[in-house]
């Protein structure tokens, strides 16, 4: 008789493991080849920075904005050239539930860098994280973050602040399906609660206690949550599931009460098949999302999508041209409209930057900040913040010709016109640059370092400013 079947399978796998381990001994280490290829391919979904738009839009729709929220300025006329068709545009209506006291910040009018002060918060409160997003909800500041490096965040990566210097850890599941939550990227305020998006979706009614939102049936989870779009009383969640090699199949789930979720028509989600949505901001006409979609096998094309309702989206950038072979990781308002940045994925190694007067027509900057030796180095801006009349981009300066421990350095660039970017000397800054920003009781609270800050772990700095 055959021995126990599972034991037989384990025996076969163990045998093959041993054979393969012996075969590896005589081979050159190919880890570097893998890493090099991955760096070119990788569509990092960790670039979302001051993604305040969705929350701001929701807050505006419900008239719950106070203070700095009133400074939610439209930097331009918004997407007008090709207005998306809003088949199910939700008209903002009064909510019967208590309206969240959202104070959403649009960074169009944040003070210049020299007007910020370090609040002196003990960084051990946050541990080894970079703060990804910050909102004010129910009279508290709420922030979420991710772990840089290989450390695992113990517990739910969200914190609640009664003031700029008073922070406590929020309560929520530490793991989903056996995997650590590890990273929360965005916060979205709705009339029916606060939502945090990582690979999964979480909801809180007070910012303190969080529960997972299960989309689809428990036995048929739809995939990884990529983005959450809030407009009016509608929250729509973009989900992707890996299918064939590098492709993903998108689906969207939408709710108007936070309890009942319906699957959006497949046609609505199909625009995000095989695409990456990396950053979302509000415009005067809805939402603007940036990311990338394939321009060929492993060749990305930077992309911009616009939506009036978060459910029906239209892509406004072409495939190829000034968008080929690059990702848009982050988008921000700028003095003359919008700017977006990202890395080239190919051999150039330089940053890619675009500007737009209206969110619809985008122009690739022809004078990137600097040249690099593409055979060993590349630059990858990942986060944007706008302080006064200057937009700052933070990201990675990687050069494998440097000693290993110095191969990856943080980098900061700035622009005042969206077209010309300069490297910023980190040592010459008056304070760290605040990225995720919210306002609480008249005080602006910002967080540094930016998302995905590379290099040695940098403690969280809480910065404050007043208008």
């Amino acid at each position, binding site marked *: 008789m*055959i021995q126990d079947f599972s034991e037989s399978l384990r025996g076969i796998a163990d045998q093959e493991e041993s054979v393969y381990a012996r075969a590896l001994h005589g081979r050159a280490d190919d880890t570097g080849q893998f890493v090099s290829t*991955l760096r070119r391919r990788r569509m990092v979904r960790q670039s979302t920075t001051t993604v305040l738009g969705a929350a701001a839009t929701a807050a505006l729709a419900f008239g719950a904005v106070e203070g700095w929220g009133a400074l939610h300025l439209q930097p331009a006329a918004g997407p007008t050239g090709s207005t998306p068709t809003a088949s199910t545009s939700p008209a903002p209506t009064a909510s019967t539930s208590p309206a969240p006291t959202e104070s959403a910040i649009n960074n169009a009018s944040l003070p210049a860098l020299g007007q910020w002060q370090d609040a002196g918060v003990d960084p051990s409160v946050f541990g080894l994280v970079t703060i990804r997003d910050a909102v004010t909800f129910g009279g508290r500041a709420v922030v979420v973050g*991710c772990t840089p490096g290989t450390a695992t965040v113990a517990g739910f990566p969200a914190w609640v602040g009664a003031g700029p210097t008073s922070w406590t850890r929020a309560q929520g599941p530490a793991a989903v399906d056996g995997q650590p*939550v590890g990273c929360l990227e965005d916060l979205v305020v709705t009339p029916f609660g606060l939502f945090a998006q990582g690979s999964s979706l979480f909801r809180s009614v007070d910012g303190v206690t969080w529960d997972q939102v299960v989309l689809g049936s428990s036995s048929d989870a739809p995939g990884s949550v990529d983005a959450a779009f809030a407009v009016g009383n509608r929250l729509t969640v973009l989900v992707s599931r890996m299918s064939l*090699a590098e492709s993903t199949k998108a689906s969207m789930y939408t709710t108007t009460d936070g309890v009942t979720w319906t699957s959006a028509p497949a046609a609505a989600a199909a625009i995000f098949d095989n695409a990456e949505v990396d950053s979302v901001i509000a415009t005067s006409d809805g939402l603007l999302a940036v990311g990338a979609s394939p321009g060929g096998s492993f060749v990305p094309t930077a992309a911009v999508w616009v939506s009036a309702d978060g459910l029906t989206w239209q892509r406004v950038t072409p495939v190829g041209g000034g968008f080929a072979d690059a990702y848009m990781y982050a988008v921000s308002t700028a003095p003359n409209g919008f700017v977006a940045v990202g890395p080239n994925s190919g051999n150039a190694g330089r940053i890619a930057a675009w500007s737009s007067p209206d969110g619809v027509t985008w122009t690739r900057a022809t004078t990137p900040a600097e040249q690099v030796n593409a055979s060993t180095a590349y630059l990858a801006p990942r986060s944007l913040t706008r302080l006064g009349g200057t937009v700052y981009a933070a990201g990675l300066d990687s050069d494998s010709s440097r000693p290993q421990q110095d191969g990856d350095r943080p980098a900061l660039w700035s622009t005042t016109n969206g077209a010309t970017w300069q490297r910023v000397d980190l040592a010459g800054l008056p304070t760290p640059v605040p990225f995720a920003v919210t306002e609480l009781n008249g005080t602006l609270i910002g967080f540094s370092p930016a998302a995905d800050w590379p290099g040695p772990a940098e403690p969280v700095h809480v910065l404050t400013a007043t208008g």
Partner: protein
Amino acid sequence: MATWQGVFEELIRQRRPALVGYAFLLTGDRAQAEDVVHDALLRTFSRTRNLVDVRSAEGYVRKAIATTYLNGIRSRRAFTSRQHLFATPEAAPAHDEAVTNAVAVRAALLALSGRERTCTVLRFFEDLTVPEIARTLGISDGAVKRYLSDAVTRLEHILGPTPGLTLDDAGDARIDIHTSVRGAR
């Protein structure tokens, strides 16, 4: 060093042979197993965000191995140098009962279709429940039950009575292979 890179390098260093051993159960071929693992590693680390430690990353990669195998991705062999993998397995006495057993089980696995074999490995090697298998492969619970039922029937036919080759303890998705699956067709 980027978040993913440290996890990736540690995973490669610590778990690569084990992943190839796992993939071999699906492919029945060492070169293909290495290809599948490489594809799965690239897929996982090209796209997945929540790679914060080796253990969770390995979970993602194992899922990707199953789906990569099923999707028949064999086109990219940029990192594969095949010759060394065709080394003859360790010689063993023909009468070694363990070897005989392994050979029989390997042959029986290869008699299954790709989906049947994948469901079988996920159930009996990874110890996943039917809903977990369905979620991993992106197919319905019913389809998983059908594949498992067919696989067990065929394996029993080839191997004869085999301890542990039963679907009665499939976790929270108990299966009556004699009624629900066939009857559902």
